[in-house]
């Protein structure tokens, strides 16, 4: 092929968010020549948008905190469906990862004794989130970006070339993982700018592509979130786990329409903001589920006291895990007690002095002022649920991030599954990115060491086929516009596989997805290959359709409600289903879903919970199998 650019690396990291950058830093530190590839400019990945903070049990604000408590909160948040080993590694390693950022120049907010300050967040028992105002993601990505620059400066000194061992390929989209037999051999993609094709020869590929939110109409996610990594893994023979679990963040903006879905950080509630319905009532007190009853305040007075005296009071129910709050808001709106634009009120104005609001929530203040014309220091915000995060993702080995079933493929960050179970706690993503980004980078380096000189090679015919597929939309018959299909897909997923799900609707959704899939095959784009967003969307669309089908199929199969999966026809949590993971695979464009037993948690971790609590999640058999007394 004439216009093909080719590069050879030890490790190729697809994605330049927190997970990708941390993985690349690790691979490079272990001496591997590493490429980082991303669809946007360097430093603009989704991670930049994270607001509230990064969870790590450093115990700076409340010294009772420890990795065990963090582990417990994470398992509770995920309704015990998390991969225990991931939750364990995450809780243990998060503090080191945060401290490490500080050595690379991050400047978190401080405690009076000069340590990193930590804030309260939903589902976390103690103040645990290291943060910088409400722009923590920016601090994280900039710090990693600057660490990469510093590694490049070292290489410049040593080799006279800053890119000798670490290079960023920005605005470059990968469309396929290339293999040599069973093993990964590299990746294929195109430069967004020129449309030119590019092949990376590399025995190890780390997926760090983030989430899938762009398949939903109301979402806090950007155009990048088209589930590329999920689809790449499927197509390479990998499997996805927990795809039915999608987190709808309870507080997205609802007005004006053009900003619908944009996130309102949970810190608003962590710092004292409360939810009210049209009648001015703090309705969350009516929605505390049994499993959480003993952990949350009974009345407003207790909830309010908790902010200053958390040892003797319980937290207000506004800080329940996100799935609970999102469902409560939907119920209030359905009952006719919503705000004028179909949400509820989030009030911080009557709770904190204006000066404090501007100081602690500067970007929220700015966002509402600029985009909605609302001054949050004097008025309540209108908020409602928005598609925010996918718990499901590539099934991986917890310790190394190795994708199950595909030697040489690794995954970390939002694209990986298992860590968060059925629901992720706020702040646990940023820490996840660092803990498992580092592990995936190390995993890839270890894989290479093991490989020695026995490197796989990319086959020429695979490249030709990948190229043909990529240009297919230019040769279409001119009837389908990618923007139209995308809009229809978003409506289908939003309305029929959204927060509240029903069998019939999901069956309909699957039919519609099949129809969209065949229409997508006829998508035609105008213009040429140079920076052509229509073409880019046409290619992303294929990924979105494949991943959406996984979500819908898994959601249809799981007949219970748990975390980010709510079935109107099966409203309760079912201990039987807790023992089951749903695994999606793809054969050609056929998606299959299989049940697989959940990995069993070792006794020493089970013992961190009260027997009473386990009663709520586990069935008789499991409980009787537990050692006497212990748990």
């Amino acid at each position, binding site marked *: 092929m004439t216009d093909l650019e080719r590069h050879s690396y030890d490790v190729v990291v697809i994605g330049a968010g927190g997970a990708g950058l941390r993985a690349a830093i690790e691979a490079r530190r272990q001496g591997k020549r590493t490429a980082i590839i991303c669809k*946007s*400019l*360097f*430093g*603009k990945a989704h991670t*930049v*948008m994270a607001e509230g903070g990064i969870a790590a049990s450093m115990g700076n604000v409340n010294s009772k905190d420890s990795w065990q408590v963090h582990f417990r909160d994470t398992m509770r948040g995920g309704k015990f469906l998390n991969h225990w080993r991931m939750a364990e590694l995450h809780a243990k390693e998060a503090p*080191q990862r945060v*401290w*490490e950022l*500080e*050595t690379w*120049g991050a*400047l978190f*907010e*401080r405690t009076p004794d*000069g*340590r990193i*300050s930590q804030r309260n967040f939903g589902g976390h028992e103690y103040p645990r989130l290291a943060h*910088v*105002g409400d*722009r923590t993601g*920016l*601090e994280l990505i*900039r710090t990693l970006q*600057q*660490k990469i*620059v*510093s590694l*490049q*400066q070292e290489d*410049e000194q040593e080799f006279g070339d*800053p890119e000798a061992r670490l290079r960023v390929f920005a605005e470059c989209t990968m469309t396929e993982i290339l293999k040599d037999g069973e093993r990964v051999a590299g990746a294929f993609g195109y430069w967004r*700018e020129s449309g030119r094709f590019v092949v990376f020869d590399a025995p190890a590929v780390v997926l760090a592509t983030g989430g899938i939110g762009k398949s939903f109409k109301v979402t806090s996610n*950007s*155009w*990048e979130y088209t589930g590329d990594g999920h689809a790449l893994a499927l197509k390479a023979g990998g499997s996805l786990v927990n795809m039915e679990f999608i987190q709808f963040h309870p507080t997205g903006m609802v007005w*004006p*329409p*053009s*900003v619908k879905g*944009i*996130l309102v950080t949970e810190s608003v509630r962590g710092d004292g903001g409360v939810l009210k319905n049209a009648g001015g009532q703090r309705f969350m007190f009516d929605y505390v589920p049994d499993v959480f009853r003993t952990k949350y305040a009974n009345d407003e007075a207790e909830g309010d006291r908790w902010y200053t005296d958390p040892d003797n009071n319980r937290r207000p129910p506004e800080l329940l895990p996100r799935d609970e709050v999102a469902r409560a808001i939907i119920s209030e709106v359905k009952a006719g007690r919503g705000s004028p634009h179909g949400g509820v009120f989030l009030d911080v104005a009557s709770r904190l002095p204006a000066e404090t609001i501007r100081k602690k929530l500067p*970007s929220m203040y*700015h*966002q509402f002022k*600029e*985009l*909605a014309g609302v001054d949050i220091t004097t008025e309540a915000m209108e908020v409602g649920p928005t598609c925010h995060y996918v718990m499901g993702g590539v099934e991986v080995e917890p310790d190394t991030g190795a994708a199950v079933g595909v030697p040489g493929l690794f995954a970390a960050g939002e694209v990986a599954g298992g860590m968060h179970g059925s629901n992720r706690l706020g702040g646990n993503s940023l820490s996840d990115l660092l803990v498992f980004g580092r592990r995936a980078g190390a995993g890839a380096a270890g894989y290479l060491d093991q490989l020695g000189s026995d490197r796989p090679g990319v086959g020429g015919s695979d490249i030709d086929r990948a190229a043909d597929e990529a240009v297919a939309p230019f040769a279409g018959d001119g009837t389908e*516009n*990618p*923007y139209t299909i995308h809009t229809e897909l978003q409506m289908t997923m939003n309305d029929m596989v959204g927060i509240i799900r029903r069998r019939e609707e999901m069956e309909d959704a699957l039919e519609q997805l099949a129809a969209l899939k065949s229409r997508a095959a006829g998508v035609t*784009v*105008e*213009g040429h290959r*140079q*920076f*052509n*967003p*229509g073409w880019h969307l046409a290619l992303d669309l294929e990924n979105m359709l494949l991943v959406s089908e996984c979500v819908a199929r898994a959601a249809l199969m799981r007949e219970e409600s748990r975390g980010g999966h709510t079935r109107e026809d099966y409203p309760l949590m079912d201990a039987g289903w807790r023992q089951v993971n749903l695994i999606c695979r793809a054969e050609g464009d056929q998606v299959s879903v299989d049940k697989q037993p959940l990995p069993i948690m070792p006794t020493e971790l089970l013992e961190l919970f009260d027997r009473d609590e386990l009663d709520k999640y586990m069935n008789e058999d499991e409980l009787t199998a537990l050692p006497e007394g212990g748990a």
Partner: protein
Amino acid sequence: MGYNAKFRVWRGMNEDGELHDFEVDVNEGEVVLDVIHRIQATQAQDLAVRWNCKAGKCGSCSAEINGRPRLMCMTRMNTFDESETVTVTPLRAFPVIRDLVTDVSFNYQKAREVPSFTPPPGLKPGEYRMQQIDVERSQEFRKCIECFLCQDTCHVIRDHEENKPVFAGPRFFIRIAELDMHPLDTLERKRSAQEEHGLGYCNITKCCTEVCPEGIHITDNAIIPMKERVVDTKYDPAFGLFRVLRARSKSKVVMNEQAERAWSLLRSVEDGDVEYATVADQVADAMQQAKAVASTGTVLARLEALDHVEAGRLDQAAEEARVSLSWHRSAQERSDAWVTLARVYDSQERATATVEAVENARRFWPDNPRLRQFAGEDHHP
């Protein structure tokens, strides 16, 4: 509540592009980026534009809107008149790749030239202790979303490709300041700011601060303190200060001279003493020279507005006059902008609007000599 808006969008590659006209629906609450997306979805599938967060957090969607460097996602449509044409062009300081997308690699190169954070050797992770009050200064600079609007607007590189190799630009002056003010950074930064990153080229026009969407006080909190301290560390204090002041006043003098020249030429056209055609070239030349030192024209909108009126470009005149109103602080300049608007409205035969504009002009500066042109007519209340 929707209406049909007129947009002019730059389309094309490299230097050979042109403005294309679009008519497009606008709904309540929308921002410029929404409208660009609608154009993309319905009229120009391959219109190239960068964006990510749509909430002013990622700094991807930078462009020039009616000539002002801005984030498209944070520019609400209701800041424009419904009849106004909204012009969207790519950042001028960087080479165009296509349509609204520019090659900003200059900035990534500059980022690599700033030595990284260097903590004291032996300080272990988890042992860092810093007071909130000491980190806040650097935190202000770390709010930067790398939209590069400040780089775009800075006159040192905006129209001076030749300065790029030696000038890091305001984005990286705040990066250096951030490290310099970091309580635990150990490197010497001020001198290198001056010697290696071109701080000396900056003559404190403050244009960068004015366009920063994060409200970072680039000049007051980073550049000026560094310049002052460069003076302490590098020069004899008196001499250094003199140098700074001289550099500053020199460009101001040039700008004022040239702006004054253009203004008086245009005024003589306005007073009917000469034909616009005979002085048009001289005006253009003077404005060019003034702009070279005055950056984006923040200070020149008043001039440009009058130039447009004389040349008969009423829409542009109105735009510039409004810009002038929002940017200029002095009463006299505001009054002048209102007079210019009055002339636009008058030519458009919008009597009430004309009267209002004249009134406003009088309110800001009752003795504005330019008001004489409206005196004889029936514009008094």
